[in-house]
């Protein structure tokens, strides 16, 4: 039965963030990447997890994106069950949160951090078998995190898509995965400078080398 409803070519992006103060940044990452994909003629979807209750400060919350060449048929499947890309707006999410649950083989993890991938990898206890690479970028040094409730609960974000740190994180995703053209992303995000610098500076580390080293 499961095979019957497979959507080959559907890519899922899950962004983990801290409740309230990073809601916007998490949402911006998925919105920026999916809107960029839409510019390239893809079918896209972006939304936030409803059950995570994002009105509690620091609680781990998720924002999701879907990108496909075909019309998305699983549009009301409300959680990304098998993400291809996981991104963290904040480094401590590697600790005590099952961020890699359900990832597809070859998945990529993108983390906003000053620390090296080697160090962060030690904290990830579950799900690394399918993980291909870890991407680190110090997005906070490139742009501030914008704290706003504008855009929460499905409303329009009047503060500007990719105005803050999310632009940098989105750029790191694009660098590591090539899920969209970087030029397309630049057309969407407001903070183009942060995106450009992040695209330049993001470090991509092969998980195999981490496993061997560990």
């Amino acid at each position, binding site marked *: 039965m499961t095979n019957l*409803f497979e959507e080959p070519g559907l890519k899922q992006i899950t962004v983990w963030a801290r409740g309230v103060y990073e809601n916007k940044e998490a949402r911006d990452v998925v919105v920026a990447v999916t809107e960029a994909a*839409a510019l390239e003629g893809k079918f896209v*979807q972006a939304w936030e997890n*409803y*059950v995570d209750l994002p009105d509690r400060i620091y609680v781990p919350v998720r924002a999701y994106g879907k990108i496909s060449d075909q019309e998305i048929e*699983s549009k*009301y499947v*409300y959680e990304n069950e098998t993400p291809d890309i996981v991104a963290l707006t904040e480094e401590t999410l590697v600790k005590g949160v099952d961020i890699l649950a359900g990832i597809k083989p070859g998945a990529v993890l993108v983390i906003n951090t000053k620390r090296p991938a080697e160090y962060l990898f030690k904290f990830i206890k579950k799900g690394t078998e399918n993980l291909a690479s870890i991407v680190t970028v110090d997005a906070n040094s490139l742009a501030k995190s914008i704290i706003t409730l504008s855009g929460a609960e499905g409303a*329009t974000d009047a503060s500007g898509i990719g105005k803050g740190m999310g632009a940098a994180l989105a750029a790191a995703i694009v660098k590591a995965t090539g899920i969209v053209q970087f030029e397309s992303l630049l057309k969407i995000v407001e903070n183009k400078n942060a995106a450009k610098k992040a695209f330049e500076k993001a470090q991509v580390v092969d998980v195999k080398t981490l496993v061997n080293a560990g």
Partner: protein
Amino acid sequence: MGVKKRISGCVATANAVKLADVEVICSYPIRPYTGIMSELARMVADGELDAEFVYGEGEHGQLSVVYGASAAGARAFTGSSGVGVTYAMEVYSPISGERLPLQMAIADRTLDPPGDFGSEQTDALCCRDQGWIQGWASTPQEALDLTLLYYRIGEDPRVLLPQYACQDGYFVSHILGEVDIPDAAQVKEFLPPYKNHHVLDPRNPQIIGAQMEPSMGPGMQYQRYQAIEGSRKVIEEVHEEFGRIFGRKYAPWVEEYMTDDAEVVIFMQGGHAETCKTVVKRLRNLGEKVGLVRLRTFRPFPTQQVRDALGRFKAVGVVDNSVNFGISGAAGVLLTEARTALYGLGDKVPTVGFVAGLGGEMITHDEFYKMFAKLKEVAKAGKADKQSYWLPFEL
């Protein structure tokens, strides 16, 4: 031509409210409909929409505010979810009794069974018989269109009834979908300014909602009965007109999906029908003769149209996304209504109820697949061995 944007059902509804040039809005927060009000509050604050934005002190107060506003001749809008909808229950009947065509958006939420806050159509279905026009959108686009359609239907001088424009919470209200936002000129052509049945004028004072004696009661109710029954023709006309102006043609009563040579179909309303469409499509690829009939207007219930639509299949599964404990058929109100519509066709069209997606769970592809499998059994046997199934526990 309009603008295409990816927005949520909440934002789509807010855009429709803006395009309808609503004059009075009353808000009170409750998820998941809250997004509609935050969007409207932003529009008013940014000067995009010139409307009185009133903060209600609760849902009962919200409905009372728009009740007064509509009586004063303003196009009024409000909304709620879940227990907010039921808290305002007292006010629904006088609004329709006084024939005030205001609109209330409902983004469904379960009625605290306890604690849960997910989507479920029980809230809006609780107030189904209050003399309001009611139906469900299945996508953000349809949420926008429903608001425009319903104002036009409700404000028609032959109808003058309030409307519940419903959308499934979270699924439709929060997940972004592509929406064609029409331009103001099109909406102006479609929706003329609201004229109440009386004009508030100090030179000609009137009592709105006057004290009626029991002897007036039957006549008052009969007026409302005539209004909602009379709305059927208007609903059809308005949908026709909508298609002409906006280029989006909706069947006013039921949307049929891959039903041409179907043997078994699912009958349901709301956003989960979109998931069902995928299942129908995939099963069709395997050569299965399955289809979907989606109810678009719930009140007034299109008895004849549902009979015509469903009467030709070998088995019909009715999906209820609501709780109706102790109801005949042991499922939900949609099953009861569908069976009533099919009454007299006897054993020719066996019906089975499926209660699914309660408390905010999505109805999965696999669940729809199982429903179709059950329906095939029923079609083969010519009867169902059980009236209804609660998913995922009984199927």
